[in-house]
């Protein structure tokens, strides 16, 4: 059961990472003309269209991680401590902190993309999106490192 949840957790995290990366680039560097390169097409997505999907993916990923954490605490952490894998413990500790901070930013992130008005709040929207990208992408990188 725990293995299935962990795999699901990873798959949802991958989808989240892809969606938030598209949106971050669309917010920070929207193409001015018709994109011709792969990078241009990558960031030419309508950023606001990803918002609800990103929120749902984040909440599902958070929930799955919160459940898997219970199994981890009982079955995995004692072995990590016994074998002195302190760095792995540190990365997981940091991951749970980033995930929690990202959870708190969810309402402001959703609100920034709720009614995008041309030119207004674009800077705040980009800043919140970049910050949120760091918080959600960081844990994925930490876990896979």
């Amino acid at each position, binding site marked *: 059961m725990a293995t299935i949840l962990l795999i699901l957790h990873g798959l949802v995290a991958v989808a989240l990472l892809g969606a938030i990366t598209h949106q971050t680039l669309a917010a920070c560097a929207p193409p001015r003309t018709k994109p011709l390169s792969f990078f241009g097409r990558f960031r030419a997505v309508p950023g606001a269209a990803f918002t609800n999907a990103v929120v749902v993916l984040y909440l599902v990923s958070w929930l799955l991680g*919160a459940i898997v*954490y*219970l199994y981890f*605490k*009982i079955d995995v*952490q*004692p072995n990590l401590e016994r074998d*002195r894998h*302190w*760095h792995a*413990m*540190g990365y997981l*500790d*940091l991951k*749970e*902190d*980033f995930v*929690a*901070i990202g*959870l*708190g*930013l*969810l*309402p*402001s*992130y*959703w*609100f920034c993309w*709720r*009614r995008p008005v041309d030119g207004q*709040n674009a800077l*705040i929207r980009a*800043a*919140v999106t970049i*910050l949120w990208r*760091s*918080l959600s992408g960081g844990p994925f990188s930490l876990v896979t490192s």
Partner: protein
Amino acid sequence: MSASPYRRFAFAFGAAFALFYVVARARGFALFTVYPAQGIILLGTHRSRDISDPVLDFLAPEMYWYGWTAFAAVGALVIGLVAALLPDRLCRFWAWCACVVPLIAMIASVYLTIPWFRL
């Protein structure tokens, strides 16, 4: 009703959540403690080594992360509601806080995790 109160709430919630979480993490303010091996939840911060022999605390590992998150959520909810009642001219301030405070919280989290890398 205009969107301004919701905007102020959202930004204040984000900033306050990050702040309260780091404070809870640093000071050990958990709303509740989860003992997954025993399947029990206790209100407040508890350490199994305070009750049983310290060498036996591995039998009852405690989890504070849920309690820290709940503490931050409750505190941020109060701050968000207060911010929603304040004047709209503070909206820029809360937006600035929502960008800066979580960033500082991330740095503080890294600092609190450093001991793991010094073992």
